């Protein structure tokens, strides 16, 4: 697995070499993918002395073969014949440009996720398909169409960092299927991006957020996959090394005084991580961070989560008052309303709202969790 990650780390740089030698992005990416699949077959038996050189040579041969077989494409033949020497552009810039290209704003989210995982992450189409739970042929086609969409876009222009971060966060939340852990992959790619962006505070904020969430992963679900709410999690199972790292990265980022939404979200996650028991959570500070977050995003989902925090900091009535400012069609509105009504002692309304929230849930573990909450409140059992 470790070797595999080292191999994949080389992929964006190798694509960059091919592009500088005159290959277009799409063909270069295809050639590197083929070389990568070959490497995964050959390397375990016969590891190369210079992995990157091996990949560059293999990918270049694949590219030349592919280009020669398309004799109609005279222009590309010329490019090959000329075979310009590698330019002076440092490889790090190539990799950064790939991030921008693969998360280009013109791409639909699912396509950007797939392309990023392939060209920047160096995963094979099969691995991406397994991780995203779609057939391999579907994923292959999704990648082909994504590449067609960004065809001809210049590789040498600065892109939109915000869309890159959004795509990486999507990868993080995609979960895991097959043998690839997409959350861990998102963390690796975000780590790499920090170095490429001169420690941009929002990139650091996103990494901190991911680490702080990842630290809680094992305690978030029970043995059968059932959800365990934050307040009920066994905090002894939280990964303290990840928390320490996440908090340190966040503090460095905040010190640069360029606050953004990921730093604010990470700050909230850090305050949760800081409480050794749920009852010790500093909800007053969390509300302050939600206020910052709201000023930055004006997002209805943030407004909804803020209502929960207000309910904890200032009491259920204050929370319900904050909830009244949130549009009722925001996802999970009923679940938050149920929680606050239960805290306010209005059990029968809380039970009805939990049942309503269960019907509106968009995944099975959440649906089951909310149905059980409804049953628990109906029974009049107190925590």
């Amino acid at each position, binding site marked *: 697995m470790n070797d595999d990650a080292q191999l994949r780390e080389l992929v964006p740089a190798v694509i960059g070499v091919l592009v500088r030698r005159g290959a277009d992005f799409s063909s270069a990416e295809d050639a590197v993918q083929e070389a990568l699949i070959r490497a995964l077959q050959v390397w375990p038996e016969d590891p190369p002395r210079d992995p990157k050189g091996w990949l560059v040579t293999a990918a270049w041969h694949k590219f030349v073969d592919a280009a020669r077989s398309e004799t109609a494409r005279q222009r590309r033949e010329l490019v090959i014949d000329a075979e310009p020497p590698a330019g002076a552009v440092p490889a790090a810039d190539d990799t950064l440009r790939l991030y921008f290209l693969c998360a280009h704003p013109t791409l639909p989210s699912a396509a950007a996720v797939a392309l990023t995982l392939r060209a920047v992450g160096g995963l094979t189409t099969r691995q991406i398909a397994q991780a995203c739970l779609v057939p391999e042929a579907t994923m292959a086609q999704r990648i082909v169409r994504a590449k067609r969409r960004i065809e001809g876009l210049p590789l040498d222009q600065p892109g939109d960092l915000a869309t890159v971060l959004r795509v990486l966060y999507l990868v993080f939340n995609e979960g895991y299927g097959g043998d690839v852990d997409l959350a861990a992959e998102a963390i690796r790619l975000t780590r790499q991006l920090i170095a490429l962006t001169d420690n941009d505070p929002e990139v650091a904020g996103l990494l901190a957020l991911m680490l702080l969430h990842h630290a809680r992963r094992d305690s978030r679900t029970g043995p*059968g996959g059932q959800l365990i709410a934050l307040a009920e999690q066994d905090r002894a199972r939280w990964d303290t090394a990840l928390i320490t790292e996440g908090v340190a990265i966040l503090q460095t980022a905040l010190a640069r005084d360029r606050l953004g939404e990921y730093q604010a979200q990470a700050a909230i996650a850090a305050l949760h991580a800081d409480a050794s028991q749920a009852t010790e959570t500093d909800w007053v500070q969390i509300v302050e961070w939600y206020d910052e977050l709201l000023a930055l995003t004006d997002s209805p989902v943030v407004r909804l989560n803020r209502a929960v925090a207000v309910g904890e900091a200032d009491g259920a009535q204050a929370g319900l008052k904050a909830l009244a400012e949130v549009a009722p069609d925001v996802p999970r509105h009923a679940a938050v309303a149920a929680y606050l009504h239960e805290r306010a002692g209005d059990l029968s309304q809380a039970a009805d709202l939990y049942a309503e929230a269960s019907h509106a849930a968009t995944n099975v573990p959440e649906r089951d969790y909310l149905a*059980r909450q409804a049953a*628990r409140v109906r029974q009049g059992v107190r925590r």
Partner: protein
Amino acid sequence: MKYLILKHYQGGPTPAVDYPPMDQWTPEEIDAHMQFMRDFGARLEETGEFVDVQGLSPAGAFIRYGGQGRLPITDGPFAETKDVIAGWYIIDVDSWDRAVELAGELSAAPGPGGEPLYEWLEVRPFMGAEAPKTAE
């Protein structure tokens, strides 16, 4: 041979027993039900008969072509009183009889009081799989 075991929210033959919606069970009854479902899925994987399991959101609609230059026609979404599919298992087994056996097990999932739900499940052979004899 592949079979689809369909679970409906409503519809199918008249229910064998009446039981309230899950949010009116006790938490322990829900836990027992969930545990049964997990064990059933785990057993299928162990025997090499598991293919897929999915749950569907109750909100959905019927859609049809609306004619040239027009938007599609939508019928729904419906309240849960109409026949709505709740989810399915796909199993890969040796015979129709085995599919029936498994559906029978699944239908015994416990409900209120730990009693079996006796829930009707629809079992449909994939094309090419052994089909039941038509009922008289």
